[in-house]
């Protein structure tokens, strides 16, 4: 009597399995669940809150989970004036975020220091952190923040995340394949 063996093709899983590139799968997951670290430092934070509220509803882009712990965040939204007194605290919080991590400089102050050409204000958070998206405005409207978030999603979608983050494993897989 012939032994019953599971076949590679199983009609039960048909339609439940998709084939894709690992990068594409990672990027799709990452860009649609960006958990923000709300770094609210000034009036931009009010617009950030408005973006999260029902009229603009940042949840439509999967970024509604504001985490007040940097250890659970993907994107830091620097919303407001970064003073020199606060600057290294912002950097420390950024360093506590797990990779991959992104930074949105929201508004004129976070991008360039804005109207504060002053002894007390850091002239743009990009002097300390790698900024992915700058948003103009003083403060930007919630639509502008959402547009910035979509720009960041576009950027994440084009990333070679797996190859970039696991170079040795990628090389081994390629060796096996060829």
């Amino acid at each position, binding site marked *: 009597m012939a032994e019953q063996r599971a076949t590679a093709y199983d009609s039960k899983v048909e339609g439940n399995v998709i084939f894709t590139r690992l990068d594409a799968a990672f990027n799709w997951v990452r860009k649609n669940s960006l958990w923000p670290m709300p770094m609210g430092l000034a009036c931009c934070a009010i617009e950030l809150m408005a973006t999260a509220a029902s009229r603009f509803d940042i949840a439509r882009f999967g970024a509604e989970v504001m985490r007040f712990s940097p250890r659970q965040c993907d994107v830091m939204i620097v919303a407001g004036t970064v003073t*020199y*007194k606060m*600057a*290294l605290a912002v950097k420390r919080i950024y360093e506590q975020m797990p990779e991959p991590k992104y930074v949105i400089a929201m508004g004129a102050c976070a991008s360039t220091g804005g109207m504060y*050409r*002053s*002894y*007390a204000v850091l*002239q743009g958070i990009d*002097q300390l952190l790698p900024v992915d998206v700058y948003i103009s405005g003083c403060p930007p409207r919630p639509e502008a923040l959402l547009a910035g978030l979509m720009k960041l999603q576009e950027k994440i979608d084009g990333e070679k995340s797996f190859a970039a983050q696991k170079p040795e494993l990628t090389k081994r897989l390629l060796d096996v394949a060829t």
Partner: protein
Amino acid sequence: MTGKELLDSLGKLFGAKLQATTEFRGETTYTILSSDLREVAKLCRYDLSFDYLIDITSIDNAGEEPRFEIVYELYSMTLAVHLRLKLKIGEDETVDTVSDIWPTANWHEREIYDMMGIKFKGHPDLRRILMWDGYPFFPLRKEFPLEGLPSEMPDVAFTKSAPLEGGPFVTQPSTAIAKFREPRARPPEL
């Protein structure tokens, strides 16, 4: 006693301690000596019902002697009277604290120390309040440049000079539109 009567009687009460009296748009300003400050402050607080210290500010008259001026804004809640006390002090002098007479003076005096570098004798906790401990400058002094000076406190804070790009851009008195009144970049020949 009404507020008018109080203000009228102040001159007699203070007597020889008054250096000068100024009236401007219904506001009374008395100039006193810094050595008389505590005596005058106690008189105002306990005998004349000036129970509210609105603010303390300081002025840097760089080049003049004495250099600094300190202004106390007093208000009487019971009589609705405003009174301003002014005194002058030199760069190396200290002022007596009034933080035991009006507790709110504690932070006001810390701010003046932080921004101007004026020390208050008898203050319980004279630390910087806006800038961090170890910041080497007093930013509101006249010799401090608007764009700031570089400084470094490892693991605490750093500062750099801000690019002014031909500024600071001050509003010109005119009826022109804002674009011409307040240029955001000045042509290099000006």
